């Protein structure tokens, strides 16, 4: 596979589970500074695609390149260290720790055993936690135990934990699931702010939200890409309408 200027280049990617092809010969390029939204009916393989990129699932064949580094054989934590951050569908935060600790643990230093033993929460870390907490609007909740946060706040906290690592590719799996209208608005603003200087992939079902944030939309169906382009174009595509409205 050739090298590209893209942040992420997925080429001819396939994965099958017991013969079922969840991702089927998929090719996808994400630009630096791009916010891409992936939509598609249930079972289209959207989450599986993110799993493949972050390493939770191993690819059967094909290539995933991040800044021209091949990822398919790489261990998960090494992909993260390259600059890939992934938010899970259900908010995945450390419920027993405070908001501060959740963010602090995500700070990309002291990642080895002895590094962690020697790690000091110095001014740099504190400043960064403060900055990220302000970004996600939780700077007044730093001492709260994360388990006591509302569902929407948990989603934000997880995004904040990813921001601590300053990833160059950020993947968000249904970031507004379970959020109120007001929270959705705030999240949209947040996403618009944080997609500066990095590539962002968002999986989402809410079309109004997608319209608000997406630079480009990719529609997936049965492990393949059905359509790709600006929201208006995709929405007018007869194949897409067909898949969404049924035959």
């Amino acid at each position: 596979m050739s090298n590209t200027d893209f942040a992420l280049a997925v080429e001819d990617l396939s994965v099958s589970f017991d013969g079922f092809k969840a991702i089927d010969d998929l090719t996808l390029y994400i630009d630096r500074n791009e916010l891409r939204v992936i939509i598609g009916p249930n079972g289209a393989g959207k989450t599986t695609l993110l799993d493949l990129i972050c390493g939770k699932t191993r690819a059967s064949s094909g290539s995933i390149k991040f800044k021209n580094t091949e990822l398919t054989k790489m261990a998960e934590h090494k992909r993260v260290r390259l600059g890939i951050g992934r938010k899970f569908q259900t908010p995945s935060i450390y419920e027993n720790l405070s908001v501060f600790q959740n963010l602090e643990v995500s700070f990309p230093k002291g990642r080895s055993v002895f590094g962690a033993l020697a790690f000091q929460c110095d001014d740099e870390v504190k400043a960064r936690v403060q900055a990220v907490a302000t970004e996600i609007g939780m700077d007044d909740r730093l001492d709260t135990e994360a388990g006591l946060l509302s569902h929407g706040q948990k989603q934000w906290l997880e995004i904040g934990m990813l921001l601590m690592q300053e990833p160059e590719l950020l993947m968000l799996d249904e970031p507004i699931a379970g959020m109120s209208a007001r929270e959705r608005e705030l999240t949209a603003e947040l996403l618009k702010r944080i997609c500066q200087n990095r590539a962002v992939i968002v999986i989402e079902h809410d079309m109004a939200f997608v319209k608000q944030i997406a630079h480009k939309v990719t529609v997936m169906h049965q492990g393949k890409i059905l359509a790709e382009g600006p929201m208006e174009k995709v929405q007018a595509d007869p194949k897409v309408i067909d898949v969404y409205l049924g035959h």
Partner: protein
Amino acid sequence: MNFLKASIQRYQLGSLLLLVLLLAVVLPLSLDIFRLNLVGKYLTYAFVAVGLVMVWGYGGVLSLGQGVFFGLGGYAMAMFLKLEASDPVSTKIQSTPGIPDFMDWNQITALPAFWLPFKSLPVTLILVVAVPMALAWLISFAMFKRRVGGVYFAIITQAVALILTVLIIGQQGYTGGVNGMTDLKTMLGWDTRTDSAKYILYYVCVALLVAAIVLCRWVQTSKLGTLLLAMRDKEDRVRFSGYDVSNFKVFTFCLAAGLSGIGGAMFALQVGFMSPSFVGIVPSIEMVIFCAVGGRMSLVGAVYGALLVNAGKTLFSESFPDLWLFLMAGLFIGVTMAFPMGLAGLWEEKIRPWWKSRRQALREAAVKPPAVAATPVVPTPEPEPTLPEGVGSQRA
């Protein structure tokens, strides 16, 4: 002053000081040397229990084979002591003088090569910690790198405990078999069986235990401790935050194994023998019970757990030897059902809030006129849904 107060709180020095006071002053003054020696023996199990707090309580990985590491440490020390007890003069009636008696009984005529390092005390002291840690590293590296965890890991550790027991019993000529290594007398010519030696060994044991607790507390308050808690909660999130999760588990498991080894060595020194009955499945599970009763999130609690359960064991098995096992099982079930955080949890969640509200009530009663104070009973505030102290105490 504030810094001092903060660090006392952070390292839970209050409860540790109380424990030191009990172990170093109260017990030696109130018990005769026979009983104190028993306490010393119990404290050697506390090393294992403290290690289990790290592995099980913090790491979330239950090991049912900690007796293996206790045993390896104990055997390492016992081998040194046995060699010293088997000098050519005191073994001159053997067909090969100068080797341990059980070797002679098994027609072994020369000291096996793996016994040679145990002729030197410094090497032995290193091996007491190094051998358990090396085995722990081997097991845990193989398991955790393959993401084996939970019940499977517990079963495998249990299998290791069984294998080691079978090995020790089967290789009678090299290990002393089922009888173990007996008649341990002196360490570098110092008779360990005298009362004064027992006092000294007891205090050495207490000092080492306190050092072990401080070390573990330091690990808990470091970022590694926070990571362990985070891993127990959402392992994938930690992995996808750029951490190699298995390394942290391996480290914790090795730490616990090293501590258990020290406990085993102190056992051999204080009790004067070592046998496979401290290695196998049953003692390993007992050690988990000590930890569970004390509270698996509390280092100090684990020590109390080891002391209380063993004291109970001695007391009951003296009078009702048949009932003890049932009682022990009942205790374990009772603890997990009624107070899963053990005695330490009971203290933190029930007794301390009750005591605080009580003091509050008394204070209010003192301020208000007696007629009013007699009527309102201040309701005990519901304990907040927080973890025991030490969890999440790393707030900046």
